[in-house]
């Protein structure tokens, strides 16, 4: 249990995937998994595998990695636990998730992050990687024990005050500098708090008409611009969480076209790729999220930025909330939406079907890029012999109706309730073992 080094797999266990199409290209092939790694790819005739999955030509991708998940444990187990969140992740095709630090107590010390990592291993459905807080208690006053978390058994590499912006420029500078010692990255929730007092919705005609205090895109864009400059100045690594505006995408396009010091990466959420503030009409808080749903123009710009690689990856920002925190008046509701089990389908609808991404592109934005950003060496690897068997099998043609009550999360706050979405995860294989198959999880403890 204390060995946190590497996913071990099951010694000697052989799993055969029949008729899979890696990256959705070429003729179907068979893929043999042994000891947690891909042992062979080709035509396997007559096999002695312990388990055979008949994929019928389904698309095989590297296992998904979510750089931004809220598992709510410890503190809000009435909304989600590591166990239910892990199940949602496995069912959504994920083999690794980064669990955000805004728990209670906050993940700002080695004890909490080790607890979360250990819970993930015990449950064994997905590699749960804790994110550490940048500032103590997420209070934005002084740095949390970043080094202690990095050197702990949790091996934290990503630090974020997500939910809050590290708005103090000096503190942000120090965080970007300090994390260089161990190759860490600072994931910023870019929101200038002075520009967004009591903010409830995207600042624009809809919010104005509905009488909801505005959250102007400039409050994100100005912080992103500042942080990019600080990353360049310090040589630190910046990751921009949940890019939500056309302006941020446009700035990142320009910034990343220059040769600069430091490193900048960015993520976009499925909901910002599909939904707009037109949905706020009924004041149903299931559509309340931070940063807020914006306009059609923003949606189009974010899709283009993701296709181009200006935005590196997709992050769910999976944010479960208990009923009492959502079934209330808009301004009292907590921001956030479920996302783990709908991310792939939303991506298929918004990017794959319109021709903006092919399946290699999906592998890039759901697996390779987030694994690289988070420094997860076993994740986001090529579908190739000798590589760790973290894999996701996708039926690209299936359609399904989203029902919050049928999702694995403890909470039901999906903004896609009732929507018919394309693409479905058939199976998820994590470190060589099937963790989810045909909509059911197959839990095995003690593997990470």
């Amino acid at each position, binding site marked *: 249990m204390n060995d946190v080094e590497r996913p071990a797999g099951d010694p000697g266990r052989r799993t055969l995937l029949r008729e899979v199409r890696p990256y959705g290209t070429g003729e179907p092939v068979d893929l043999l998994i042994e000891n947690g790694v891909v042992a062979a790819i080709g035509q396997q005739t007559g096999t002695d595998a312990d388990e055979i999955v008949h994929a019928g030509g389904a698309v095989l991708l590297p296992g998904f990695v979510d750089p931004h998940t809220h598992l709510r444990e410890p503190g809000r187990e009435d909304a989600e636990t590591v166990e239910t969140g892990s199940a949602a992740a496995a069912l959504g095709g994920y083999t690794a998730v980064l669990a955000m630090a805004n728990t209670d107590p906050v993940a700002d010390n080695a004890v909490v992050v080790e607890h979360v990592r250990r819970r993930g291993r015990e449950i064994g459905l997905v590699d749960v990687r804790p994110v550490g807080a940048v500032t103590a208690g997420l209070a934005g006053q002084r740095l949390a024990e970043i080094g202690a978390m990095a050197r702990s058994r949790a091996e934290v590499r990503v630090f974020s005050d997500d939910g809050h912006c590290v708005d103090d420029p000096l503190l942000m500078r120090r965080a970007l500098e300090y994390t260089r010692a161990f190759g860490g990255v600072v994931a910023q929730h870019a929101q200038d708090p002075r520009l967004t007092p009591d903010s409830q919705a995207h600042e624009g005609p809809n919010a*104005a008409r509905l009488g909801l205090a505005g959250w102007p895109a400039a409050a994100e864009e100005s912080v992103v611009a500042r942080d990019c400059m600080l990353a360049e100045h310090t040589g630190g690594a910046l990751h921009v969480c949940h890019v939500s505006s056309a302006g941020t995408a446009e700035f990142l396009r320009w910034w990343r076209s220059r040769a600069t010091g430091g490193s900048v990466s960015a993520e976009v959420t499925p909901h910002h790729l599909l939904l707009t503030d037109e949905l706020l009409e009924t004041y149903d808080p299931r559509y309340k999220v931070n940063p807020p749903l914006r306009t059609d123009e923003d949606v189009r710009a974010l899709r283009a930025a993701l296709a181009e690689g200006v935005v590196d990856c997709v992050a769910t920002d999976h944010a479960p909330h208990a009923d009492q925190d959502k079934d209330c008046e808009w*301004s009292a509701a907590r921001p956030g939406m479920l996302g783990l089990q709908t991310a792939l389908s939303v991506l298929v609808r918004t990017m794959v079907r319109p021709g903006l991404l092919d399946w290699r592109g999906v592998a890039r934005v759901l697996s390779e890029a987030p694994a690289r950003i988070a420094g997860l060496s076993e994740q986001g690897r090529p579908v190739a012999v000798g590589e760790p068997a973290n894999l996701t099998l996708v039926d690209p043609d299936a359609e399904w109706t989203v029902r919050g009550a049928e999702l694995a999360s403890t909470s039901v706050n999906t903004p896609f309730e009732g929507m018919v979405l394309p693409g479905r995860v058939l199976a998820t294989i994590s470190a060589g073992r099937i963790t989810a198959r045909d909509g059911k999880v197959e839990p095995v403890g003690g593997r990470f």
Partner: protein
Amino acid sequence: MIRHLLTADGLDGETVNTVLDTADTLKRTLLGREVRKLPTLRGRTVITMFYENSTRTRVSFEVAGKWMSADVINVSASGSSTGKGESLRDTALTLSAAGADCVILRHGASGAPHRLAEWLDHTGTKVVNAGDGTHEHPTQALLDAATLRERLGELAGRRIGIVGDLLHSRVARSNVHLLRTLGAEVVLIAPPTLVPEGVESWGATVTHELDPQLPGLDAVMGLRVQAERMNGGFFPTAREYSIGYGLSAARTAKLPEHAVVLHPGPMLRGMEIAPQVADSPRAAVEQQVRNGVHVRMAVLYHLLAGEESTA
């Protein structure tokens, strides 16, 4: 007729005119009566649920209900459901279960009446928005329209100016929608910091200068400058605001002879409106309050007394 009264936005002209005509009928019926009491809503229970302080609106609804013989119960809730207290949903369901035929809600959260209407939809309890956050205050717009109709006749083609804190004003939002529905032209006048984004799409003209507008207006409505919502320094000083946008005597002298001055109250005398203007014959402030009772009677009538018209 409508199921609930949540917004002025989306109310069609026929509905608005029906309510205004009913209010007018009720007003004339009660005029000069010794006992101002109609049996219309006898046996009906109306509950006012006020999560924000208000004297005029609550009293107006209470009087409206009582003049129609409804049982009116006032619930004042301090603070909102964001604290440790009972949720808005549970409170509403409790009041409905206790027999409320109609809940009149004043709440600090924009959209709270929409949520309430959704939660109570299966119970048959009606919801009236008595002001929600910075969103709407539809009965205020109805009583303003009733007042303007009395003073000016038909509103189609009339030019109405609304001046002040448009950004935070639910009165302004409801009035723009309702006046546009009745065919009036609306001119919104405020410093740029108090103009909501996308206001052009409301179908009103927006300007930052009041004086050039005055000679062309049939009515001007001064909005409350809501000090409690001013967390961001929207203008330098109250004095500067008053110089630019206050309804002074000199300024209102530039209005046409027939033009009306409205204010939803409570008035900040001296800053928003000069005392001699507020008390002048062209000011309709008290008439607005009087009409408020009749308009709210009409709203309760149409929501609670069935589909048929009074005429």
